């Protein structure tokens, strides 16, 4: 880990860091945007997972629902990643020694990989026996990984 520390220090020397730390309303605004992104990303993901598990919107084909909600999931992800990156820059050195931050980054890498390499492919398949079986894996995987990201993210400020 020692090799990445200079990057964390460099973040706090940037103009961006100064702008965020010199205006006390910027950080709360970023946190609020982060929450809006959470509602979009996790809200639509939960709907798709409940559909994949067969407990909601059972009459609507999975692929159709995925097509309807896809752009909201993507918008939520864009809001979360951009506001998250800015908050990271503003607290870089503190994050380096924060265990929850590293746990969150591991969950985030796993959740993003799972989302693009598996989840998105399963929800775009036409309904068949194959989708039903893979759908359960996709739903539980996405729920566990995304809620892992959210919970470890929440504990950055509390547990350290």
């Amino acid at each position, binding site marked *: 880990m020692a090799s990445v520390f200079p990057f964390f220090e460099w973040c706090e020397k940037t103009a961006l860091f100064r702008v965020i730390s010199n205006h006390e309303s910027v950080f*709360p605004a970023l*946190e*609020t945007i982060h*929450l*809006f992104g*959470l*509602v*979009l990303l*996790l*809200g*639509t*993901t*939960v*709907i798709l997972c*409940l559909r994949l598990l067969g407990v*909601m*919107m059972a*009459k*609507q084909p999975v692929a*159709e*629902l995925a097509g*309807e*909600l896809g752009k*909201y999931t993507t918008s939520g992800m864009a809001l979360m990643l951009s506001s998250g990156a800015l908050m990271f820059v503003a607290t870089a050195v503190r994050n380096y020694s924060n265990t929850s931050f590293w746990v969150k980054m591991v969950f985030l890498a796993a959740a993003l990989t799972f989302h693009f390499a598996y989840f998105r492919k399963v929800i775009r398949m036409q309904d068949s026996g194959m989708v039903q079986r893979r759908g359960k894996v996709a739903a539980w995987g996405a729920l566990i990984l995304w*809620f892992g990201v*959210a*919970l470890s993210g*929440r*504990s950055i400020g*509390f*547990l350290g």
Partner: protein
Amino acid sequence: MYLLEFCKMLDKSAIGTAIRESSLLFPVIEGVHVLALALSVGLILITDLRLMGVVMRKRPVSEVWEQFFPWMMTGFAVMFTTGFLLFWSHAMAAYNSTAFRVKLLLLILSALNAVVYHLTVYRKMDRWDTALVPPAGARTAGWVSLIFWAGIITMGRIMAYTF
């Protein structure tokens, strides 16, 4: 003044103190409160967007509503339970917080918005249930709900800074 006495009583109570002083209880309850946003406001958001005629237009509004309702209510049950516990532990700080007062006002207003919607456009739903774009009254209810909930989240985030 009854409100002030009530908040003082909650703040001093054993349960309020226990949650406030526990290094684990408060973060866990708050964490659940934030996560339940996905189920509660997440489902409200898509319902509002359907009422505005921008998403899931191929599905009748009544179908979206019936399918979402039990999950949305589960989400809100979790939100209100955890929210009340958080309030219990910081009742005096909440009483003195402008953001908290605005948040409560917005919650009441969004409940009123839902009541007005149910008493008006919703009654004639059989006429527009399958419409790609619902009538102006329904679209307005969707917009109003969306704006109020964005405000509720913002106020909730701001009030946490005063605790």
